[in-house]
Every structure is written in structure tokens, then in C-alpha cells.
């Protein structure tokens, strides 16, 4: 029988699909289950081409890198903080698109909390307004 995604994730994806703000969606296990067209333009690949990406893969697929060009530890990424700790998180860093281009962005992530606990997290991205390095 089909295992339906939690409704909150379904509605989040539907909302993200309609936004021009780049946005990522991960499930409660940290699996990247969707990103929208705007994020796809930033990354150089549509989600439909890539498909869902495991929790231990997506962090390294696009970087991210700190102000010194060093990879940011997976555990420090805003989406990971949001989904693991159930807390909002914010950071600015560089990501690498599929073609190798670097983009400095700010990312804000927040958890999707339901009556049954955390179901995942959403992160939205903007071009960085400053270069303060990764942080929460």
C-alpha cells in the first residue's frame, strides 16, 4: 500500500512549488525530498532530474563552503540543525552548482512540527547580504 508522505510535507512542497524563492525540503530523516524550480536554477539541475538525495549525500553535493572555502560540517548546516533539534537556524555560506559555479547565499531553515512531532524541515535561500561566515 502507498505510504503517503505526511500532509505537512505535501503542503510544504505544494507551497514551495509556487514560490520564486529557492527552497529545500527534507523529511524527518534528513533526506532531501524536494527542492523547487528556483533552487534548481541556482544549483543547475532540476529536482526532477536529480531525485531525492540521502541525508549523508546532499550536504556534499552542493558544498557548502565557509568564507575560507572549507566544507562546512554537515551537522552545522541550518537544515540539519532544524530537523535534528527542532529549532530554526540561519547561516550564510557558499554553495556550488552542478557546473561548478559558486554562489554566496544566506539560508534560513525551520522545522516542520506536527502533532506527531517533527516531520522534516524547510530551508529558503537568498543571495548573501554579507559575508559573516557560517553560524546559527
Amino acid at each position: 500500500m502507498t505510504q503517503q508522505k505526511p500532509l505537512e510535507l505535501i503542503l510544504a512542497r505544494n507551497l514551495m512549488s509556487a514560490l520564486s524563492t529557492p527552497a529545500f525540503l527534507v523529511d524527518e530523516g534528513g533526506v532531501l525530498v524536494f527542492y523547487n524550480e528556483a533552487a534548481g536554477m541556482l544549483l543547475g539541475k532540476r529536482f526532477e532530474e536529480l531525485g531525492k538525495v540521502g541525508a549523508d549525500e546532499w550536504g556534499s553535493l552542493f558544498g557548502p563552503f565557509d568564507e575560507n572555502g572549507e566544507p562546512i560540517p554537515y551537522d552545522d548546516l541550518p537544515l540539519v540543525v532544524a530537523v535534528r533539534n527542532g529549532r530554526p537556524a540561519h547561516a550564510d555560506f557558499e554553495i556550488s552548482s552542478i557546473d561548478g559555479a559558486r554562489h554566496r547565499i544566506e539560508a534560513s531553515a525551520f522545522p516542520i512540527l506536527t502533532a506527531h512531532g517533527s516531520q522534516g524541515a524547510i530551508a529558503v535561500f537568498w543571495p548573501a547580504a554579507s559575508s559573516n561566515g557560517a553560524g546559527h
Partner: protein
Amino acid sequence: MKVKLWGTRGSIPSPGPETIRYGGNTSCVGVTLSDGSMLALDAGTGIRSLGLALAAEPARLHILLTHLHLDHIQGLVFFAPAFRPQTEIVIWGPASPEASLRDRIARYISAPLSPVEVRELPCDVSFRHCPEAEWEIGPARIRAASVAHRGPTLGYRIDDGDSSLAYIPDHEPALGADLDALEEDWISGLGLARDASLLIHDGQYADNEYPDHIGWGHSSLSHAISFARRANAERTVLFHHDPMHSDERLDQLADEARERWAVAGGREGGIELAAERAEYELPARTASAAPAS
């Protein structure tokens, strides 16, 4: 499993000469399980007639509420078994971070909206939040899942032996989504409806009415048909009729539904519009859900 529709109308009771055949009572479906035990799905005004029709007073009744909009609970204080001390009634419904199910229902069953309070009901009534995991009532396995509507809203799936009923009366799965293109696990409610013997699903709006009601929590005819096709239900009954739709208008929509169902490759007799007092006896999944009357 036997299913009888006691109220098929959405939003507000719509009695009158123009709604005689499809009915004017709001949502209520009676389900008789294979051991004879009784469930009521929603407690719209149709539950009043269900209560009056229960000849042999069951010792225990379960009422499964999809949500607490008035058209789904309005009949509760007119449900005769609730006024009999020998009856035990278990009311199931969606949890909310705001207040318990009992407290939220008590907002309706209290002054000034009601002449009685919950605590004054003579029956033994209890309130339970639907669990996330499947649970059992008699011989049936019950599953509830949140579905796309306004406010905390559930759809239900009831499996009894080899037959299954999916009940999703208020549902807008196409809100911001392309039902024909999405993967199955991303469609609200599809996990409940998949391969059901009988799917009772929202079909409130004609296609030309839907654009003025996007986000109201209900389906257009096209969306309901797409959902039913994706669900691969044996038989689909379109439910929660708009109060503005007369019998004549619903006849037109029924014709349109059948034509489009056929064009979409659906099996003949696989879709129809809900009519008050219609009964269905659900056999095993391999055969059709034949109407009992």
C-alpha cells in the same frame, strides 16, 4: 461490510423539493462491520436519521469524525442513542494543539448553541484522538491520516476482511498540485484510498466553479476523477454535494462524471454521485462493490 449514506450534502443542510433524490442532510455514513458492530462516519445532520433507524439498540457505537466543521458534527445532539444511558459512544477525531477533542466539540454542545452540555448527555460518551498508527474496532482495522482541507482534518480507511472503505469527504488534494503528474506518495489521501473497494470522496464543485473556491478545501469534478483514477479504487462515490446543486444539476454532473471516467479509461459503473439512503455491500477487492439497493 455494509455502507449506507445518511447525509451526502456539504456545508449546510439543504432540504427542499429540489434536493429530494440526492438529499439535503450533511455528512454521515453508517458502516456495519462483518460482526454486526456499527460505525458512524461523521455526525452531520444525517446522523439523526441513522439514530432513529437503529432498531436494536447497540451497546457500543463508534463515531469517527473527519473534522469539526459544523456540517460534520451538527447532528450529534440529535442522535437518539446519545440520550440513552445504556449506550456507550466513542467519538474519534483529529488532535489539535489548541484543545482536546472533547473541549472543541463542547464548544458546539454547550450554551448558547445547544440546550444540553456534553456532561449532561445520558449516554456513556468518551472522546479519543485518532492515533497515528492503525487501530482496531471489532473485526475492522482503522487508519486515519491528515488530508488537505482547512484545519485539522482526517480521512479514514476501514479494512474488514478483504473489503475496504476509504472515506475522504472534505479534501482538496489538487491545491497547488498536479494530480496527474505527482508521485503517488506526494498526493494527499492517496495512501488511504489506494485499491479500496469503495472510495467516498469530495466532489463538491463543478470544474467551472472551482476557480472561485481555490483553497476552500474541496475538490472539483476533474480533481475527484483524477484522484479516484490514481487511487485505483474499485468504485468511487462523489460526496459532499454543494448546497447550491439541485438534483437536476447533480444529474448533469453525474453524466459528466461517467463520460469523463470512461474517457479516462475507468471501468463502467466505477463512479457515481452519492445519494442519501444509498446502500453498498462491499465484497472482497477482486469483485465489484455491488449496490445493495
